[in-house]
């Protein structure tokens, strides 16, 4: 109550300050975080397949083009595709070992990425190769798909190893 019997509106003071790096110019921390509600939509059967130990690509119902990474419509003729099983045995088309990366994967470095190829399939599949020293990987190396026992519904539910 003021002397005149009226209240003056006032913003409440808060405890939290800010993280300040610099005053001239003022540089401060801005926290930004978000949870997405991500639908795999038409790609969902692929991820469901991984959870059952099944690796699936796509085959065009019209022109017969085959895709090791699934797509619901053909990139060559635009017609719908159908699901097809990919063999678990395959070969390394190309590879790299990453010693650095994006923040999300930094803790996993070094890791080896491969593009996987199958004879008679028109495109490739990106995956990780596990248990092989970087200097031992080569183009044409035979590899075999393995699956996580506890699915995370991510493309990393499948990975490749050598026998």
């Amino acid at each position: 109550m003021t002397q005149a019997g009226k209240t003056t509106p006032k913003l409440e003071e808060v405890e939290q300050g800010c993280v300040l790096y610099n005053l001239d110019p003022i540089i401060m921390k801005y926290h930004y975080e978000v949870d997405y509600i991500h639908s795999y939509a038409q790609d969902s059967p692929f991820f469901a397949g991984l959870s059952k130990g099944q690796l699936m690509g796509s085959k065009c119902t019209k022109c017969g083009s085959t895709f090791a990474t699934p797509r619901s419509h053909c990139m060559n003729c635009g017609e719908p595709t159908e699901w097809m099983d990919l063999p678990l045995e395959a070969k390394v088309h190309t590879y790299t070992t990453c010693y650095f990366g994006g923040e999300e994967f930094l803790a996993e470095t070094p890791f080896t990425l491969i593009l996987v190829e199958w004879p008679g399939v028109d495109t490739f599949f990106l995956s990780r190769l596990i248990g092989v020293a970087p200097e031992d990987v080569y183009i044409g190396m035979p590899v075999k798909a393995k699956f996580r026992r506890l699915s995370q519904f991510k493309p990393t539910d499948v990975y490749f190893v050598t026998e």
Partner: protein
Amino acid sequence: MKPVYMVAGGITKFSKASPKKDFRYMVKEAFDAAMADVPNLTLDQIDGSITSYFSDHFTRQLMAGIMVHDYLGLTPKPSKRIESGGATGGMCLQSAWEAIASGRMDVCLAVGFETMSHVNTWKGNEFIALASDTNFDYPVGGFYTGYYAMMVKRHMHEFGTTVEQLAAVSVKNHKNALHNPYAQFPAELTIADVLNSEMVADPLKRLDICVMSDGAASAILCSEEMAFKLTDKPILLSGVGTGTDAMRLSDRPSREVILLPHENPEDYKDLKYPGVHSFRGGRAAAKQAYKMANIQNPLEELDFVELHDAFTSSEIQTYEDLGLCKYGDGGKFIESGAANLDGKVPVNPSGGLLACGHPVGATGLMQAVFSFWQLQGSIAQHFGGDDTLQLKNAKRGLIHSHAGTGTYITATVMERGF
């Protein structure tokens, strides 16, 4: 289509971070630099703008394009924002070209920027990797250097390209930049320096890869009538081409090589193409641009090239896409010295992305500005009197802008209009 000319350009000095100037101020600086070169051009005479920046994540500001347009005093004139990954700057220039070529505008401003310093490098790599399929590619270990490493591994396998040849690109471009006052990372390097730098994704090492940058660039494009009113040294944009390829590196089935006028099908009868060793979109872009500019043999008819060397490997692969040499001969091409400052067709005389920096939305426009000065013969005027990088009698050049694993690629031929 009406002929389109560039009459002025400006750039900020690219740097790791520019905390004293935000994106609007940086663009204003690049814009004012361009305006200073065409004193007869007033703000009133600019019909509109095209703005470009790659990542809303880096900016943490949606609709930053209109904020730039507003800051420059151009409201309520037309404007739009262009985004096409790493090719954003090159696409912005071509969008401005379209505005003039169609007759919609007589004077169009193309401006671009990126502020990559707002997050640390690790987070920056993550943001960039979000420009890969987030269902199938990003979660496997999203890292663009890793993707390009897989591409060049295959190039080495197919054609015998060596890490020494990759390193030679780094040495050349960093050295050129010693004479470019706008460059972020000029350096005198040896092949051994590059080979001994930290491994990032085999075979690409720290010095094979461009750095992250803050920066802005601008280009003013005009109709023929306006161009000759504003300057006696306008540069004609005589050919534009744009190519694309599938977002996923995995989706690159083998097809026939797209042939340039000086090539024969027999040159490539056993080549699986593009696979992941070549950028088909780059070849498609070059073919269109050459056709429009009436170029039959690029090696003989281009005086220089400024191309998108985010990685040393990309420069070698791009020599081939642009037809400066046959597919597979890119490694030999750098070794031959043909791409050196005193070579047959100097490539990245400015220092390229490797040495100038790569503030994504500005990068393609930076190439336009360097090429513009090169063709005007005004390098010394803009480089503090140093004319080391001025190519004698440069009449025609090509600029090339490229997005993630070759998804969007632009090629633009620029030549003297005087």
